[in-house]
């Protein structure tokens, strides 16, 4: 524990007479500091273990009362009603519907804007546009929720009169806009990392900027772009306040974005706001739903990290 990482400090200390006398005390102090720092660093692992432990503990209790088969196959989710159904499917389709809609906006717009910022925009314009775009990422999600429910939804209802006040589409639109900077800045980082020589070779062959961007730079940065896309999906799946405010509280098996639905995250918020007594089956449902959510986002994050490592085009 007391050993040093580097060789130089140990040998440096040998020449200082004063240090020699105090060495045992010093070594003890050094060791203590290292142990303290190690404990702090382990705190992050403990957090993960804590998340997993809490979720598993409550989820096991949940599955002692509800069979996994029902959880997976029942097409209805009504734990708060007197006739209780525990099928996760409606919450899953709600989540997929909102996420899908958000990605329809965030992925193409984010990617095209990344190409523009990395290949087209002059440096001065870039330095103005990028920070402006990044403000979007810093705005609290409750603010987006406000915007989705009280601005986008009424607008949408003017265009589609049969849209409900709470609907998946307005949550999707706002969430999509919120995620644009994430896609854009991660994809841009990947494209900026593509070596200049590749671009210059293509230009020398007479390619236009668009051809360089779409046929040379984007393919070379593909792993980074795909990783950015997956992270964006994961972010949308876990997003809570926009859907809790604007998408409604009706778990429904529907793919109609103009209807009111409920996502996994919005359900957890709904139960947390109510007066559900601790220890009841209704209370345990939020941990089972949370577990599903955690596993989905964990899987997506791991896939995205793998994509970066496995499919990176290495130059030099």
């Amino acid at each position, binding site marked *: 524990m007391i050993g*040093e*990482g*580097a060789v*130089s*400090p140990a040998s440096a200390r040998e020449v200082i007479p004063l240090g020699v006398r105090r060495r045992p005390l010093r070594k003890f*102090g*050094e060791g203590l500091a290292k142990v*303290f*720092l190690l404990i*702090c*660093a382990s*705190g*992050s*692992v403990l957090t*993960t273990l*804590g998340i997993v432990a*809490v979720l598993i503990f409550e989820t096991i209790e949940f599955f002692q009362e509800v069979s996994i088969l029902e959880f997976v196959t029942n097409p209805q989710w009504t734990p708060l009603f007197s006739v209780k159904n525990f099928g996760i499917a409606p919450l899953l389709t709600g989540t997929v519907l909102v996420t899908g809609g958000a990605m329809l906006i965030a992925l193409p*717009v*984010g990617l*095209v*804007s990344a190409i523009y*910022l990395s290949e087209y*925009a002059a440096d001065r314009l870039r330095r103005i*546009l990028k920070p*402006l*775009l990044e*403000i979007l990422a*810093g*705005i*609290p999600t*409750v*603010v987006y*929720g*406000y*915007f989705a429910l*009280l601005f986008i939804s009424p607008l949408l209802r003017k265009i589609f009169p049969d849209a409900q006040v709470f609907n998946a589409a307005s949550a999707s639109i706002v969430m999509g*806009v919120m995620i*644009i900077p994430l896609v*854009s800045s991660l994809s841009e980082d990947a494209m900026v990392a593509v070596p200049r020589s590749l671009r210059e070779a293509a230009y020398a062959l007479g390619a*236009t*900027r*668009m*051809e360089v961007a779409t046929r040379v730079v984007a393919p070379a940065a593909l792993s980074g772009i795909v990783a950015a896309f997956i992270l964006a999906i*994961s972010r949308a799946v*876990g*997003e*809570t306040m926009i859907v*809790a*405010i604007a998408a409604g509280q009706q778990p429904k098996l529907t793919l109609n974005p103009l209807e009111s639905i409920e996502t996994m995250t919005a359900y*957890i918020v709904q139960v*947390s*706001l109510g007066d559900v007594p*601790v220890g009841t089956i209704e209370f345990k449902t*939020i*941990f089972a739903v949370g577990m599903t*959510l*955690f596993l989905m*986002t964990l899987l997506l*994050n791991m896939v995205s*990290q793998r994509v970066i490592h496995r499919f990176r085009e290495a130059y030099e």
Partner: protein
Amino acid sequence: MISSRERSIGLRQARAQRELRNRKDSAFAIVGLVATLVGIVMLAVLLIDIAQDGLGALSWTFLTSFPSRFPDQAGILSALAGTLWVITLTAAFAFPVGVAAAVYLEEYAARTWFSSIIQTNINNLAGVPSIVYGLLGLGLFVRMLQLERSVLAGGLTMALLVLPIIIIASQEAIRAVPPSFREAAYGLGATKFQTTWLIVFPSALSGILTGTILALSRAIGETAPLITIGALTFIAFLPDGLKSPFTVLPIQIFNWISRPQAAFHEKAAAGIIVLLVVLLAMNAAAILLRNKYQRRVEW
């Protein structure tokens, strides 16, 4: 043999093709600019919409009143106080632990399997949805440690949420301190801890602080984890201790949005303006710190 007529047709075709490709290129430049502006225009619309809805409801009484059933009397005093409590506690827990963890990973840890597990784990934690941290806080702090729905439970939950962000930012700041600084300290006979505490840490401090401020501003805007641990939506008193129930600014805003009356929506918009001003101030502080730091860097 290609006749001169044939050659001119070929040239004309090539020129037409070149023209088409150039036109496509210019079109793409416009599409790209529009795509980049989509988000920025939306941001502008959002800010204008909120300013229109909320500026009228913003007043000194709004800042100094408790929430109320009557929209014209409702204010955000308890929410502001709750936010201040939670953020102070969050910073008090997350800053020392986060910086210590970053120091360990950058200065002490050998590249072993253990440190690589910690690193991977931190990266994964940064991607966990915030509401899952809420469930952790509910299971661990509220129930197991029986902290109830207190500001302490809220601060601890938020600390876990921002910890990975602070660690990653601090690691980057520490990594930016040139090795020659450390070597000079070792050369003068400093121990590893002395070098870290007296040389590396002060040099990285402004970078660490910048990252911490940004992490805390993320925590100020977070709503979901605190709803999950059971922060109340209606609090007509100020928190008076670690065990006190509380509400925070985003939860108060959420509560007002959820009500059907338009008068409460105006209050929500006014609350949002206050929230955005607080965040803007924090970000400005972070940018100032960063600029100061960048100017000093001449190593």
